């Protein structure tokens, strides 16, 4: 369009202005990805090892990882911790969304609550992990102090040496960091729904609960799916909290796949090939999730238009 009106070819500037992005992406993202994939097939181990070779059995590392008990447990842990944080997170976020967008019951101080609920999301996760470690410390820690002084327990409880409490706390921290974020995303989704629909429902005599389940939720489907997938991809990469809270312990109970990969490669063992293989397995899982997200976020009208165009072209050609 531009080139027709002015007679100068502007298309080259499109390429020119994309060069920095493309160059940085190729160097810092694509090349490392391919390199990681390649390393997964090699015998590269040890710090500063530059003479490595493709294994005789190229899939050896993948086989080793997939049959590695720690990796299998870390994958299970990752999914379990994600589910334990996501289910309460989405439930409470939906509840708050319903309250904060209700037309009949205006809650005062909405702005304040939003700011406070979102706050944990912006604070460094590394700091949060160590803060919670301090909060649950034994025998003197704020949580134990509360439990004992309120008479809920006779003596302090050592949360962090038992598996179940540790897993619960990690899931809770994830919940605590993310519920405010999810709530704000959902609220903005609800505000994007046409008010006419709500008016119509009100005229038809729908009550608050009916309105929520039959109007809000169906109209929020895309936003909900978006939340689900971004949370899932983030959850599959969970690193900061499990790494710094208990370093995957006690007894690998909070070991996530990212912590597993880090420990394989950088925590003394330098098994880069195994870590690379594990990374690629996670990469495939995440790629599938991303593909799903892409499919969801594609411009629907544009896609339909494109299809029509193609169809028209096809028909034209056959004539």
């Amino acid at each position, binding site marked *: 369009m531009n080139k027709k009106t002015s007679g100068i070819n502007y*298309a*080259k*500037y*499109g*390429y020119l*202005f994309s060069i*920095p*992005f493309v160059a*940085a992406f190729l160097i*810092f993202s694509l090349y*490392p990805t391919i*390199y*990681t994939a390649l390393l997964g097939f090699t015998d*590269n181990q040890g710090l*500063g090892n530059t003479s490595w070779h493709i294994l005789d059995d190229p899939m050896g590392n993948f086989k080793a990882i997939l049959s590695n008990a720690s990796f299998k447990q870390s994958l299970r842990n990752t999914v379990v911790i994600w589910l334990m944080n996501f289910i309460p997170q989405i439930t*409470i976020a939906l509840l*708050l969304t319903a*309250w904060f967008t209700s037309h009949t*019951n205006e809650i005062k*101080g909405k702005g*304040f*609550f939003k700011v*406070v609920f979102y*706050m944990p999301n912006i*604070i460094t*996760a*590394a*700091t949060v992990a*160590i803060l*919670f470690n*301090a*909060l649950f*410390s034994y025998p*003197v820690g*704020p949580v134990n*102090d509360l439990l004992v002084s309120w008479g809920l327990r006779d003596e302090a409880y050592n949360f962090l040496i038992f598996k179940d409490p540790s897993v619960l706390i990690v899931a809770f921290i994830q919940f*605590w960091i993310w519920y405010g*974020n999810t709530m704000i*995303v959902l*609220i*903005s989704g609800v505000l994007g729904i046409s008010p006419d629909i709500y008016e119509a429902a009100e005229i038809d005599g729908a009550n608050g609960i009916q309105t929520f389940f039959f109007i809000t939720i169906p109209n929020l489907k895309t936003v909900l799916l*978006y939340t689900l*997938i971004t949370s899932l991809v983030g959850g599959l*990469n969970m*690193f900061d909290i499990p790494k710094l809270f208990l370093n995957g312990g006690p007894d690998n109970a909070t070991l996530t796949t990212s912590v597993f990969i*880090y420990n394989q*490669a*950088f925590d003394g063992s330098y098994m880069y090939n195994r870590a*690379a293989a594990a*990374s*690629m397995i*996670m*990469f495939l899982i995440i790629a599938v*999730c*991303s*593909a799903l997200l*892409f499919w*969801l*976020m*594609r411009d629907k009208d544009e896609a339909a238009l494109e299809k029509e165009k193609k169809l028209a072209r096809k028909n034209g050609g056959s004539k």
Partner: protein
Amino acid sequence: MTVTNKSTGNKVFVGLQYTFCIFLAILSLLPFIIMIVNSTRSTWQIQQHAISLIPGTNLKQNFEVLTSKTFDPWRGFINSLIISVSSTVCTIYFSTMTAYALVAYDWKLRKPFFTFIMCVLMIPAQVTSIGFYQFMYKIGMTNNFLALILPAIASPTTVFFMRQYMIPSLPMEILQSARIDGASEFRIFNQIVLPMMKPAMATQAIFAFVASWNNLFLPMILLTRNELYTMPRMVSLLNGDIYKTEYGAVYLGLLLTVLPLLVVYFIFSRYIIAGVALGGVKG
């Protein structure tokens, strides 16, 4: 009769709503309050009662204990600031440029390029970190801030948001008249487009800055020298044995690592919340 019943029921419901919201607000704030209060109390006071809302007078001693060991908040602050500011500048400038290329020009690969950006939107740094580390090691860029700054030039998420913002708000007529006046394309971008994109750039800058400031994984694998540690990397020192019994100092160290973020959040919370909300409606 039924009307009064309904209104009492309603009152109970409203009461429950506020109770729950206040409970969540306390849940969100309490850990930070404990952190702030305990950073001013002595180890002995914390051992007596680990939870208290009354500040102590031990801030100075805690600071001395904290800084007498490996934890160097000033160093960490400077390092984090250098990395976060530089990578934010890179992200914002080049993402706006890429978005501009996608919006303002009609080029053959425009559509495939945008599709491609959408495809790589969700790929996190973790899964490519082994290759990234080995690559940086080979070219001698470990323990170099540039390894953390330059990748920020390619930030698919920011490009996506800048494009969304630019499509409705970039008036092509102004660009055309600038062209007629003889301005070069590069100058048009720098002197006309960038100033118009300021609000979107500011929002995205806050998020880019916070994300970079909070990043733990890459600094952890790339920076091995103590004097290069960023704040999140430095905070992991507080978990070690050297601070085992120095409770007050640990809380103070934690507070110092997030103080800049608390300040940023205190000033920009409105824009941050609005920015998060913006992220949700792209669906």
